[in-house]
């Protein structure tokens, strides 16, 4: 929670970071969560914040 709050505080879009607790017996939940995360993240589009591509240096 602290991490999520901090990340979102410094500007990570809500919905970029998810937490879930899925036991190995909860296949349906896994699918559900995976799809949901997928959907939310797709709506957000590609991540830019905190993603390093090529170092921005001289």
């Amino acid at each position: 929670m602290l991490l999520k709050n901090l990340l979102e505080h410094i500007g990570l879009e809500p919905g970029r970071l998810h937490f879930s607790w899925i036991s190995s017996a909860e296949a349906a939940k896994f699918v559900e969560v995976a799809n949901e995360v997928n959907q939310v993240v797709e709506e957000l589009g590609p991540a830019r914040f905190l993603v390093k591509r090529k170092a921005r240096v001289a």
Partner: protein
Amino acid sequence: MLHYTEKIREIAGRLLKQGVVDVFIGYRKGSVPMMNNPLLIRDPGSTDLLYWDSNCALNLCNYLTGRKDRIGIVATGCVSRNIVTHIVENQISRSQLYVVGIPCTGMISHRAVIRAVGGREIIEFEEQGERFLVRGRDFEEIFEKNDFLQSNCAVCRYPNPVLYDEMLGERVPGYEGDDVYRDVEKVEQMSSEDRRGFFSRMISRCIRCYACRDACPLCYCPTCFVDESRPQWVGKSIDPVDTMTFHLLRAFHCAGRCTDCGACERACPMGIPVRQFTKKLNKDVQELFSWEAGLGLEQRPPLDVYRQDDYDGFIR
């Protein structure tokens, strides 16, 4: 707080002479105005070097880590809280320490003072009770200390040491307002995008000197994550993402342990308000775990323990 100096010298002399401690850690008057120099003495004869005023803001707890001898140390509220954390985290044992407690009326922000004189060079600083005087080449000004406190000191709820063997004076009142986290709340109210901009701009000046980390008594790992190479968690260039990653992780490693002593912010040569990161965590830790760091030897920081009723609303 100047008047503490004599008492510190006297106590240090006594402790060293009686062999209660092997070394005594305090401050020496600095060679530059509003900058004091941490000092360790062994000889009861050199206690005159010890000095105390409202510019002793580098956290002395830093100098305790891993010491094996018996140590006398002066400690304000926040330093004592860090000493508590140090003891809880096995960095020093209580029995090695003789803590000389300082009821603290706050440290002066040298940056604010310089700003107040329009960036002109200050050559002399003199503390006079609740006021202080600064003198430059062609000016002289007297200020109220309370107007120039470091921002963490201005909202300090624990100015008195929480652990000590001897106190230097009467306890002083702590801050009682309920807006300790007003600065964090202000940022919280911004939009996600604005916050992103706010923090990106904030750290754009960072030169990756790690003064904030090195001034922090919580940062005592033998190898810091920024120095690890297998894997290399964070790049070493001044790439903005790497810089942000560094600040983020540094702050997170302090989650639930930070006493908001302000050493990081004071140490930053670029004047970056790095406490914006840790203070958000402090606020959340207080809200989620009702916890403030370093108040007692009995409990470990909240991220070290699991409790059934830990907040889990974020887990799906």
